[in-house]
């Protein structure tokens, strides 16, 4: 008969123990709602300052290029950007180049814009331009003619109909915007908007990206892209800055990334511990002559 201790030793050997530790390091902070204060990096501060410097009525292109898979990282960013822009009184032009993007735009309108900013009216203060297929080709068309690239909004109203959509009156092309904000889960994403819209159009651009994709985007910062929110940590830093600047936002739905960073931070520390323990085991085994270089 195998004892419990022997069974545990056998079952928890090797990677299973690591998996168990990761499971605990993520679930315990989540259940006990452990979170930490974030200190914003200079890059996130640049993004925040860029949005904060917008005058009332500024036209901002808000792009939702992500899907449910990347939603946990990107949605807190898009929500934070939406809140910040509405607090600055900017005009929001929401669109997406991803087929799964319209769902995300609907969520932000339903869960953020409509309940939190009831004085924002569709067609006058914000517009949902929906999804258009074509990737960077559409961006290139929008550089010369926005109406050609996005002929209707998500409700099939013509974007040339400035009576029903007065927000479209002064929008001719990409150059008509004060800022582009790209929430990017992959391709097409920030590099395409930088190359085909922001740089040729001379419009500043800021972005948010999944953590694994941000190393590829650093070459664009700060010359072509003002700043970048890197993954969940970037979103949490942005939320922290938003809460410090606008204390009225201190409520659970405005600190989603901050709350999620608790488990991520603890998991990072767990991995650091694994690295230390792993090297300790490796060096002691090497000293005993069991392992070569």
């Amino acid at each position, binding site marked *: 008969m195998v004892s419990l201790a022997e069974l545990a030793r056998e079952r928890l050997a090797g*990677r299973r123990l690591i998996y168990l530790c990761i499971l605990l390091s993520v679930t315990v902070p989540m259940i006990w709602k452990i979170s930490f204060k974030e200190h914003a990096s200079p890059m996130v501060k640049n993004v925040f300052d860029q949005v904060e410097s917008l005058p009332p009525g500024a*036209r901002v292109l808000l792009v939702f290029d992500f899907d449910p*898979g990347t939603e946990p990282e990107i949605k807190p960013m898009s929500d934070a950007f939406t809140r910040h822009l509405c607090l600055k009184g900017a005009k929001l032009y929401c669109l997406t180049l991803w087929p799964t993007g319209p769902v995300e735009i609907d969520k932000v309108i339903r869960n953020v814009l409509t309940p939190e900013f009831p004085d924002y009216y569709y067609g006058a203060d914000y517009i949902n331009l929906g999804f258009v297929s074509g990737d960077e080709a559409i961006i*290139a068309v929008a*550089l*010369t*003619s926005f109406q*050609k690239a996005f002929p209707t909004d998500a409700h099939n109203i013509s974007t040339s109909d400035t009576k029903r959509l007065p927000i479209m*009156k*002064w*929008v*001719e*092309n990409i*150059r*008509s915007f004060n800022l582009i904000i790209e929430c990017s889960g*992959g391709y097409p994403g920030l590099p395409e908007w930088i*190359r*085909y819209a922001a*740089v*040729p159009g001379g419009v500043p651009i800021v972005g948010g990206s999944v953590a*694994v*994709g941000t*190393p*590829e985007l650093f070459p664009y910062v700060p010359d072509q892209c003002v700043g970048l929110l890197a993954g969940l940590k970037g979103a949490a830093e942005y939320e922290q800055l938003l809460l410090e600047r606008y204390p009225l936002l201190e409520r659970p739905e405005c600190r989603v990334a901050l709350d999620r960073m608790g488990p991520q931070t603890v998991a990072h520390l767990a991995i650091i511990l694994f690295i230390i323990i792993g090297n300790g085991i490796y060096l002691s085994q090497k000293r005993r002559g069991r392992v070569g270089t």
Partner: protein
Amino acid sequence: MAAVAESGASSLAPPQEVRVYDHPNDNGGAIIVTWQKSPDDTAEHGLVTGYTILRTSRSGGQFEVVGRVGAGTIQFVDTTAEAGIFFYYKVEAEAGEQTRASPPVGPVSSTFQWINWNRWNRLLLGLLLGGAVVAFIHIGQRGYKFRIRKLPGIEAMEKAIDQAAESGQPIFFIPGSEDLSDLQTIAGLSVLEQVSRRTARREVDLRAPQFHSLVMAASDDTLYHAYHEAGRSSAYNRDDVFYVSDEQFGYVAGVGGLMCREQPAACFYFGSFRAEGLALAEVGQTIGALQVAGTAERAQIPFLVTACDHVLIGEEMYAAAAYLSDDPAEVGALKGQDFGKLLAVGAIGVGCLLATLAHLVDSEVFVMLRDGLLSIFETGTGR
């Protein structure tokens, strides 16, 4: 609401110095309209809310609106100007209900240009690098033996096939998650061709689960030809190349399960990967398979380096087929790539030196040389 101008004047100043000209380096159909801002369009006065661009095809004819831009803008590209027709333009400043237009300018017509001179640098670099590759291919085909450094990953692949032959275990080949339009997939298929020839000769089962139907069709043909060339057409099994899913994690679930059940001796990952690369590599680690990966996806390289035994990074993946085939033309192409790298290193070195000198030394010559070198590598994305 329009602000009243400080001077108290009620009439709006029109835009100044309106110019119109054909958009260069395009297929016709576009005319550029530029102007100087209305004196009432300033940060202090803020009277002007925008500009309307109007056009007519007849002198003295009725103008129609072709575009609107916001205040502060000084350029508009009319992309609806039919080539060959002459147009007249005027630009109208708007301030609430008030408008004031510039005098009409024209006539101008859009024409197409045969050559897009904006892209001269791409042509130059393309000819230089492409020419080098073709030249080295030609030298290789004439019999010259180029020396190339060894790649541990390639040697590991050959050993893995030998070990699989001895143990009777299959080998898995995963050609990446992109479709046939991606060059990484094509490079992966080149490697599959070489691997399948060896596995067919050594009587090793090769499984190639697929993300995309077109890649599946090409992989299937590759495997069939490999068995045919090895004289083992009867051993070819059409179920060895099969479609799983084009959804990332659907593929991981399917192939991960197969790997656990079939216990391959080795797993080769060649192509474009995203998150599924790490997931599959870790499953492969669990079952103790030898893993060799090759990808040009920079975001995934670190994950594959930690999870696989050998990784061919970036251009090494494109070179893998040359290593495996030892074909003179393929090896020649590798040397052409090396020439390109030499050019890149030289340009970076010279460019850094010129940029430093331009910054430190008060001389227009270095600034001119630096800007000249920069212009060769600039890629504007306009029309």
